């Protein structure tokens, strides 16, 4: 195994602004936000609620368009929502196969590839279940397998574990980290859980609220795998929370 040293930018966001509402009374969701993500990096975005994290992911995923600025991206990214958003009329396997089909994978290869992806998320025995027959954590893993089926260069995750209980969430952190390490998939992970961000990320970016821009970046250098309750994880998380509080306070003072 070699450690990749050349920097290859998978995503470049430059001075992107997004405004909502009618002209005159508009609110800035994003204000000249810039962000570069290198190949294989795991970047976490944290911010107070309503800070435009989801807006940013929608812009990167091409579900929305910025008013100003430029987003350069290699290929179409995969996106994981907080809700698994599986198609309820298809089984877990068929959900994955549909993603393969839309990617243009030949019919004869789809079944094998879907089975492989089910194995990646440890659900090889549950492929023929429909989404409602699976638990929340299992649905989210099927959604992850479906996202992997897109074979995208960039994986966007919008608070994907926000609705799960602590034990399931903890296991999914391990699972996601393992898959990320095996596939070397560039990942942007949005969360409001700062410890989760420190647990998973190479970098944690703190977003300001309304309009959002990046106020500080923290490099996470602890060796992997990390644990949520590890002292140095907790300590860095504490620093980041302090930074976030300062940001939130500045809003109270401004208005």
């Amino acid at each position, binding site marked *: *195994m070699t*450690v990749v040293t050349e920097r290859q930018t998978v995503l470049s966001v430059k001075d992107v602004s997004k405004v909502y509402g009618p002209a005159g009374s508009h609110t800035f969701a994003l204000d000249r936000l810039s962000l570069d993500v290198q190949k294989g990096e795991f970047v976490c975005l944290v911010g107070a609620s309503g800070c435009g994290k989801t807006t940013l992911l929608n812009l990167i995923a091409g579900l929305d368009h910025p008013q100003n600025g430029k987003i350069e991206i290699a290929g179409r990214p995969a996106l994981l929502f907080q809700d698994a958003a599986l198609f309820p009329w298809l089984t877990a396997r068929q959900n994955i196969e549909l993603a393969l089909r839309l990617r243009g994978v030949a019919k004869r290869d789809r079944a094998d590839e879907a089975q492989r992806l089910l194995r990646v998320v440890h659900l090889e025995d549950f492929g023929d279940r429909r989404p409602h027959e*699976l638990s929340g954590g*299992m649905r989210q893993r099927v959604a992850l397998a479906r996202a992997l089926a897109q074979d995208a260069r960039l994986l966007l995750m919008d608070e994907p574990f926000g609705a799960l209980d602590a034990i399931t969430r903890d296991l999914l952190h*391990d699972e996601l980290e393992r898959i990320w*390490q095996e596939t070397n998939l560039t990942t942007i992970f949005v969360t409001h859980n700062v410890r989760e961000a420190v647990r998973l990320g*190479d970098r944690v970016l703190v977003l300001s609220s309304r309009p959002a821009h990046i106020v500080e970046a923290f490099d996470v250098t602890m060796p992997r795998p990390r644990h949520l309750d590890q002292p140095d994880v907790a300590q860095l998380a504490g620093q980041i929370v302090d930074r976030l509080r300062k940001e939130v306070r500045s809003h109270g003072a401004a208005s």
Partner: protein
Amino acid sequence: MAQRLDPSPDPYAVDIAGLDALEVPVQAAPNAARKLWTAGWPRLAAIVVAIGGWELLTIFKVKPSYVLPGPGPVFARLFHDIANGLLLHAMAHTMWRAAIGYGIAVVIGTLLGIVVARSRVVRAAIGSLITGLQTMPTIAWFPFAILLFGLTERAILFVVVLGAAPAIANGLISGVDNIPPILLRAGRVLGATGFDAYRHVVIPAALPGFVSGLKQGWAFAWRSLMAGELLVLLGTSLGQVLQNERDTNDAPGLVATMIVILFIGIVVDSLLFARAETAIRRRWGLLEN
């Protein structure tokens, strides 16, 4: 930068398998005979109560028997008319009309529904008109239909189609409107655009609404058809038989024919539409077993 680890056996696989085993809902396979009995006995009881009440009305002679015949003579007459072929013949003709009229209504209603669901302009133009048409009693169309087509099959079909098509279109429109936006976004992220989006996301996601539209459309078609057959007396049909029995003061025959009309309505609804609806709801997990 990511450090690649050796893809060694995953130590978390065991934990995850344990959690999965705990979290998956346990489903007991329902016993077929028991299921049939659970679904069947309330229906059976309702029929017994209805016929019993009817018998009581005739025993106490609430109305004279030439106006309100009892269950005995009516069922005797029913078997007689079925055995001699009259009702079967009439049923065949009526069902043929129903199939053609409903078939045309499905095609028109579906096309209309797709156009309205897709286009904001068309929806603004005729969206409320479709709902209006659905509330308009179909019998009110008949004078106009007869003026247009005379006392012909076409007059009957015209009204059947007008009765059913708006309901079918409305079902499809509400099916599309009720698609959770997250599914549409998920489809777009996966690269389903244009025709692919319709084929793989919009149409399957709108299916529950569409099926209830089809079901409602059938109910409207059947009602319109009966009204039509009573007004436009052509050939031997259920409506025409009913009208004949009224003209000849044939009360047992009249009630027997009504039972057949009700029976067909129930059978089509429960065998076709209710089943389709249940199957879809079960697939989607919207049904408790």
